[in-house]
């Protein structure tokens, strides 16, 4: 088991470097450069060259990459060209906001989704099944930001139960997390339903019925425990899909976070910030998938025994 975890962890290192190369080269395809936005009116070409050299932008791309990656792994992610702050500080200031939003959204996706999925599977092909599946689908049919805006209209403007925007206590987190989480909940509900129905038709369930075990016990103790595995796997695979919604949601609710930081930086062509936040978001998704994989191999005794 530990060997397996160790091997999987080692695999993260090359993935990290590939991501940095991809992100770095993509960023340098973006037209326009941050230097132009730094130069005041009346500045000369010499001023421009001086700035280019100061930021090392006159060097060939691969040298720029090597310099940057060396500093990056040492924890120095460079200076924001616009904000004049170390990028690392900005990341560490914004990261907790995105993490909190992401984790709460995931929890919502998981619990709402599983509940809908169970109801739907147990009441297969009844009106209850159709209704809960349509509710599950609605989460994936609209963009997260739209859900966010509608929730603001209902709960913040009409009912004034929760604040419209900003950040602070849990009350600021509820609406954004629901907006992001409902999309994932739809996904989870659909997998739960399919995978429960698949297990429902297996012989061991028939045996349990024959032994006279109650329907509820069978569903919760036997079917759900088996059905949850594919849910965990796919949740891990689609983390990026679920958390992608967080980017637009941070804008809607005016929350600080990696997503809104990335977007602002993208518009101002602030390369170092864009690079670092893209890498952090992507790595967060990959590490999330990695953790799900470990949980999966731990929770399923068949997989666990494989690596003993």
């Amino acid at each position, binding site marked *: 088991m530990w060997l397996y975890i160790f091997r999987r962890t080692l695999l993260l290192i090359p*993935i990290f470097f*590939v*991501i940095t190369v*991809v992100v770095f080269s*993509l*960023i340098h*395809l*973006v*037209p326009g450069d941050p230097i132009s936005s730094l130069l005041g009116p009346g500045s000369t070409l010499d001023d421009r060259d001086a700035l280019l050299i100061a930021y090392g932008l006159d060097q060939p791309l691969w040298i720029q990459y090597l310099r940057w990656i060396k500093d990056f792994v040492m924890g120095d992610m460079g200076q924001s060209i616009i904000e004049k702050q170390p990028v690392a500080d900005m990341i560490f200031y914004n990261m907790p906001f995105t993490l909190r939003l992401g984790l709460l959204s995931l929890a919502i996706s998981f619990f709402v989704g599983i509940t809908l999925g169970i109801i739907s599977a147990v009441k297969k092909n009844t009106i209850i099944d*159709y209704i809960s599946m*349509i509710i599950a*689908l*609605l989460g*994936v*049919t*609209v*963009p*997260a*930001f*739209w859900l966010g*805006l*509608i929730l*603001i*209209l209902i709960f913040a*403007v009409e009912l004034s139960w929760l604040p419209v925007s900003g950040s602070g206590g849990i009350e600021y987190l509820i609406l954004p997390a629901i907006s992001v989480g409902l999309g994932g909940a739809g*996904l989870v509900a*659909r*997998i739960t339903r*399919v*995978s429960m129905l698949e297990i429902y038709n297996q012989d061991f369930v028939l045996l349990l019925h024959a032994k006279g075990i109650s329907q509820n016990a069978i569903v919760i103790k036997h079917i759900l425990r088996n059905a949850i595995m*594919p849910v965990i796997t*796919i949740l891990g*695979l*689609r983390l*990026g*899909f679920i*958390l*992608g*919604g967080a*980017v*637009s949601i941070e*804008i*809607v609710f005016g929350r600080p976070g990696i997503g809104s930081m*990335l*977007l602002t930086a*993208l518009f101002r062509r602030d390369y170092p910030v864009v690079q670092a936040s*893209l890498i952090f*978001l*992507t790595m967060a*998704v*990959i590490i999330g*998938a990695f953790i799900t994989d470990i949980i999966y191999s731990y929770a399923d005794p068949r997989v666990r025994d494989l690596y003993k």
Partner: protein
Amino acid sequence: MSIDYQKTKKHKSPLKVLLKRLAQNKMGLAGVVVILILIFVAAFAHILEPYSYKLQDISNMSQPPSLTHLLGTDEFGRDLLSRIIRGARISFTVGVVSVAMSVLIGLVVGGLAGYFGGKVDLILTSFADLTWSMPSILIALLLVAIIGPGLESVVLAIGLSYWAQYARLIRGQILSLKTSVYIEATRSLGASDFVILVKHLIPNSISPVIVAATIGVGNAIVLEATLGFLGMGAQPPTPSWGAMMSSGTAYLFISPWVIVFPGIAMMITVLGFNLFGDALVDIMDVKNRESNL
């Protein structure tokens, strides 16, 4: 009796079988109806819209729904219903074209990976997995930043960020098909790799891709809206549903209907594609739990 026997033996066209099974699937049928209505509205948008979609009327700014303007007007006094009708054409086109693009890329990458295996497979599959693990909204954002905002860039960005799932699907199918006897027979008859892949393997492994693509059109429409909201999509006065919601955000508290109605239109549309896609899974009996989610 003998006539009945003849009838059952008669070869039914696969399309007829599909249609018959579809007719029995209520949810799928509902999805088909929604898609057909959408195609109709998109095709005849210029006839159906009660006003011109770009006709501004400053004296009628931000009016709530009324008899003259069934869904109200936006901040320029433009009729919202007309813009949603016109937007159906744009959203539908964006959805279909971008998905066609990702399917094409997916077929090439997945086909090559599955057929040639070995190192080719390893490299292509890792690349696909990497794209798959990155949130597609991030890839799309970055691509739009590179090629500049606009509807064409959005189509390109969505097409380039969603192909990995199709590649995975087609690869899996080809892996299981390529050792089958009929492929061996074709090869022994002297067919080239290209012919085997394009004429025999891909047509036989396309059905899960079609299912995933149906649902993919819905996802692409949603992604277009998000990119539009972030200011990267269709530029005014082009009325894509995403662009409408985006410009309406500033007037959220004055004229909420500008946001609400395009969203509902999108909800119904994407629901339609999802229901149809789900029905196809049952009808075509494809095993692709992962792809249809």
